[in-house]
């Protein structure tokens, strides 16, 4: 296997374990702690977050589109796909921040708030890192890098972005749905 791809996969294992530790905290607070759940009046906006989930998931598809494009040396497709992916990711982040502003409780209020902000914030930080990588790739795609035979520098950040998307589904299902 190519070293960069293998390195990214191993890094993702580490990332999964970071999330694992936060999920551990979540279930300790929710299940072992045994406090009333959800706390008085703190219902989460499932629908808006669900809509936001759809946005993030669709960004995985646009990224895949860009990937298919560069495999056929379709530079315009690559650029369109990258810009769309980047904008979708950015939209996700904005909606998430907007949710924080209007949600009505803070991490200082109770442990439930702490772990809600903890998990979604951890994921938000990953989206930000992913967006940074996507920005670099987008810049490079406009500068004429990558071709059908040479697009590893595109694939490796791409794997990371897909991971961020899949991780969000898990976070969404845990925090908002169950």
């Amino acid at each position, binding site marked *: *296997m*190519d*070293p960069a791809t*293998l*390195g990214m996969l*191993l*890094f993702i*294992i*580490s*990332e999964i*374990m*970071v999330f*694992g*530790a*936060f999920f*551990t*905290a979540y279930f*300790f*607070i929710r299940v*072992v*702690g045994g*406090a009333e759940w959800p*706390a008085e009046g703190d219902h989460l906006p499932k629908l808006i977050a669900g809509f936001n989930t759809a946005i993030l998931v669709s960004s995985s598809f646009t990224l895949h589109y860009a990937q298919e494009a560069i495999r056929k040396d379709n530079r315009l497709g690559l650029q369109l796909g990258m810009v769309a992916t980047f904008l979708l990711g950015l939209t996700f982040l904005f909606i998430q921040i907007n949710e924080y502003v209007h949600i009505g409780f803070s*991490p*200082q*209020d*109770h*442990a*439930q*708030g*702490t*772990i809600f*902000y*903890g998990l979604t914030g951890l994921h938000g930080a990953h989206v930000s890192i992913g967006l940074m990588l996507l920005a*670099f790739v987008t*810049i*490079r795609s*406009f*500068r004429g*890098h990558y071709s059908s035979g040479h697009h590893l*520098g595109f694939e490796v950040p791409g794997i990371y972005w897909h991971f961020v998307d899949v991780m969000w589904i898990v976070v969404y299902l845990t925090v908002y749905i169950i």
Partner: protein
Amino acid sequence: MTARLRAPGLPRAGFFLVLGTLFCAAIIIAAREAYGFPVFADGGITTKAQNAILLLSLLIAPLWFLIGLGAFDYWFYWAAGKKERAEDHSGHGATSWTDYFRVNTDHKVIGIQYVVTSFFFMMIGGLLAMLVRAELAAPGSQFVDANAFNGLFSVHASLMIFLFIIPVFAGLANYVLPLMIGAPDMAFPRLNALSFWMLPIAGIMMTASFVAPGGSFSTGWTAYAPLSTSAPLGQMFFTIGVQFAGVSSIATALNFLVTIITMRAPGMSFWRMPLLVWANFSTSLLVVIATPFVAASQFFVLFDYALGFNFFRPEKDGDVLMYQHVFWFYSHPAVYIMMLPGFGIISEILSVKSRKPIFGYRMMAFSLLAIVLLGFTVWAHHMFVSGMQDWIRIPMMVTTAIIAVPTGIKIFSWLATLWKGVLHLDTPMLWALGFLTMFTLGGISGVILAMVPMDIYVSDTYFIVAHIHYVLYGGSLFTIYAGVYYWFPKMTGRMFDERLGKAHFWLTFVSFNATFGPMHLVGVKGMPRRVADYAEEFAAWNLFISLSSFVLGLSTLIFLYNMVSSWRGGPRASANPWRAFTLEWQVSSPPPIFNFDRIPTVVGGPYEYGVPGHVHGIMEPAEEARPKQAAGASSAEEGV
């Protein structure tokens, strides 16, 4: 001057460190002003604002330092959309000592940087231990108060674990592992350099905690919440220092794994790898999977401490025991992170020095992997008296006892390797044998501690201190000494002084046992650990322990003197002074700048000592290493 501040290097790093601190101060002052918190009071900055600036600087300023040093230069270059540039190894090698103080991508330079840095922090940690023992030489208070005492043993343990044992193994492996598998370098040389430079940051941070307002962190190396979330600011020097050490260790582990999987020389199948490579493969798996948990646990503490989150506040439904679960889910595997590379070193040395094949090579590799798996199933044996659910105790007791099986397989395989061998009792071998005996003792007290009733009885006594030092000093540190002596000729091109090496071993071996052996006794009698004072009845033993520990401390100076003087003026070492098969000994001492002038080909196992005519590696590329007629046949085919 401006030129020096522009070029990557330590001057620019120092300059950026100052800039980074000012940057943090600006952020804090602006944020506090914006939210209406007091910033300025009677001509100065308020204490709260000062502390906030210090805390943020701990997190952010080191990154500025690394940028100044040039650790990120290539990535910035890449991010700007410029052409990709594969590492051209132009920065390889060290021609003078100053080359060790810059970002160097040569794994051999980085290996030495790692080893020297970790021994530096080991000396600081050792000095702290001497202070601890001086205070404990007699009952009552000698010259530090109780809180300062807590700080001494906390920083001692943290430095020894995070800045010495874990990184020194990474350093040794950094040097020899690529050579052993026939690779020109690690898979990601730039990441390798970055990993190293995060280490001194973590070490200096932990050491500097003594000057923090309120004193150094004093919660032990375990930093249990909520003790740590309500401690003075010094605690954050640990919380954040661990993050840097942790990132460094994950990045190195990732690098090792990719290097081992993708960069082995032709013919070096997994079942022909030296056991040191297997050991670091297993260790790296543990690091990649477990270390994120300690990072997360310290993030929780940081958030509770700095931002008023409620992870560990019971009055806000937080869960205090959750800290211990998350922490030990890392920190039990961490004891194997601190031991498995040592197992690898011992396998190399015992086989070479008894001139016999290693006994049960495959079982040795499988038992490493078994330890990796089982290591994740035992964490709560550190929590038998924590007040967790009772039903977890028995399963964890059983799994802990089961780990003795793969470990026992290794011990017996080593014994069988020695059996009827031609033993060369020189310095590396003495340390290896010392490890074998001392680690077995530590393992036995470990199995005793796994038993719930016994554990409850000796919990938080000196029995625990005795156990951990038998496995980490008599275990890990003895393997480190063995490894440093064994590869010293390869790393420096010089031989060490054998007489001093033996004196170092015997003095350490005797004073080590005199120091930590009696701790079992006073522990069983009930002397509590981590307390500055103790009952009169333990006075005699403690004086004996303290005096022995000073001898133990002095014995380390022999080692230092031997290393420094031999490196400067020892006799030149030949390429293969131990007559070993593994590839690192088939090149000159020290190795050429790109390790192998020609890619080697591996044709047999690494340990078949005493087997007539055995060859492990041939220093020729695969095509030329093949028998003559086959080569002729293949070229004839090409002709068609």
